[in-house]
């Protein structure tokens, strides 16, 4: 008798790839039981395609729902989910879209879809009480570069060569013109949101790399170096102060195991 693992391997092939050869003879149910596997094939495909369409409505608006649906079907066959929280599935879909045929004609497709993914993620975040500048009152200036900040969960950073934020505003305000030609321009976006709300703002490059470095776990010193590499004229202290005054930092730590909400 075949093992459960062998049966499930064949069942999986039937569900994802429609190959019922390995499992058909195992089944009962109706005159041709293997035909009923279409129920599970549809459940798999439809539920995941629907999940992606719900996450990327603006991308569907941009390229058309039929194309997005087709791409989603290809995506779920190539990249099945790896975990049960389907709301977290699809972060690599923008990159997948960038190698689809239509992407050659819509150069900004990946970046637009990434912006939409980030918007969806920040909108379901919750924010926490921010720290104020007083949190640093006891810190001697020489020690400051060794500190790290934890930022609000609903923050993402996106550097793109297209004004996808303008395109997204057209979608959100339902004001798309009949025809639109985007001109390439490098922008540095901060996407911020919480509890159903979101916004995206353009930052200057030095401020962007500073905040992005901090958001990725870099120290204040590392972030300052990044921003100076980008713009030698920038004042990292000013950039840090703006980050704090914008309410984006929630905790400050000197080392991995020492929290300093107040010094």
């Amino acid at each position, binding site marked *: 008798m075949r093992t459960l693992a062998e049966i499930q391997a064949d069942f999986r092939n039937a569900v994802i790839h429609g190959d019922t050869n390995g499992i058909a003879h195992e089944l009962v149910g109706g005159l041709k039981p293997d035909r009923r596997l279409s129920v599970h094939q549809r*459940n798999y495909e439809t539920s995941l395609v629907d999940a992606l369409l719900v996450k990327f409505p603006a991308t569907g608006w941009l390229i058309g729902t039929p194309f997005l649906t087709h791409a989603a079907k290809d995506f779920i066959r190539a990249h099945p989910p790896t975990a*049960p929280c389907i709301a977290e599935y699809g972060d690599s879909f923008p990159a997948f879209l960038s190698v689809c045929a239509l992407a050659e004609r819509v150069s900004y497709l990946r970046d637009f879809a990434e912006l939409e993914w980030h918007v969806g993620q920040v909108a379901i975040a919750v924010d926490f009480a921010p720290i104020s500048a007083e949190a640093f009152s006891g810190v001697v200036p020489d020690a400051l570069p060794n500190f790290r900040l934890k930022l609000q969960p609903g923050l993402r950073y996106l550097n793109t060569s297209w004004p996808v934020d303008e395109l997204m505003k057209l979608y959100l305000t339902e004001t798309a013109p009949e025809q639109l030609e985007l001109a390439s321009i490098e922008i540095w976006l901060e996407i911020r949101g919480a509890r159903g709300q979101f916004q995206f703002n353009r930052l200057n490059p030095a401020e962007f790399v500073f905040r992005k470095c901090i958001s990725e776990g870099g120290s204040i010193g590392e972030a300052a170096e990044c921003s100076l590499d980008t713009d030698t004229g920038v004042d990292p202290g000013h950039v840090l102060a703006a980050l704090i005054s914008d309410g984006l930092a929630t905790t400050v730590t000197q080392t991995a195991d020492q929290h300093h909400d107040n010094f």
Partner: protein
Amino acid sequence: MTTPMMCTPPTPGIGLRLAHLEEMVAARPPVGWLEVHPENFLANPHAAELLAELSVHYPVSIHTVGISVGTASGIDRLHLIRIRGLVDQINPIFVSGHLAWSSYGNEYLNDLLPLPYTEETARLVTSHVDELQNTLGRPYLIENPASYVGFKSSAMNETVFLHEIVQRTGCRLLCDVSNVVVSAHNMGSNPQTYIDDFPAEAIAEIHLGGFTPVEDEATPGAELWIDTHAAPIAERSWDLYAHALRRFGPKPTLIEWDNQLPRLTTLVGEARYADRVARTILMETAHADAG
């Protein structure tokens, strides 16, 4: 497994989906309890925050679709730990899942797939339910599936298999009456007999949900009933619910509706109807006992 559960809710509850969440918080309609799929809340901190708010006002049950007790390659322990976190946060009245498998290696197939009822499967499910109950620190409820195919290799029927799992693990059962209706139609069995054979002593909860008839590709001219949770509860499900209550006695009952969601008031109406059915059966039973 000796951890007691909270006292059971007296009136039927509804499955709470994200689309109804804010309205639920604002209106707080009179339903006995709420049941959520944790997978929708673990990935959505804002929704989890609102759920925590609701859990102050309603008993909440956690009904996972992602814990795959029948997966040969093992349950997703990372997911289990996340569920444990939600359980610790909202202290649900029940934690339940399905007699099914959904994962293959590192892939999650997002469906409840059928199992052959063999000794090998029983040992595997027993091992996974033990792990679940030890991790969660409370009894786990297993739901009977809606079936479209079975396996020639099955050595026992579903109710015998469930009885085995209850005996081996001390778990509890969630009897989805609509799944019984769907499976009986699709597999050619008798739904009343299934209810009569169900391990009544282990039942902690009952589910009712809508199904959708489609053409059966396996049998031209016949219908296959799909457990879509996208329609009102069918008359024959209500009839079997009444039969189940006569056999099991009053049990916490939940209305499930996941797709093509109606207005919240429709769900509340279905819960009220379930309450009326339950009260009728209760009175009928009381009169019979008195007579």
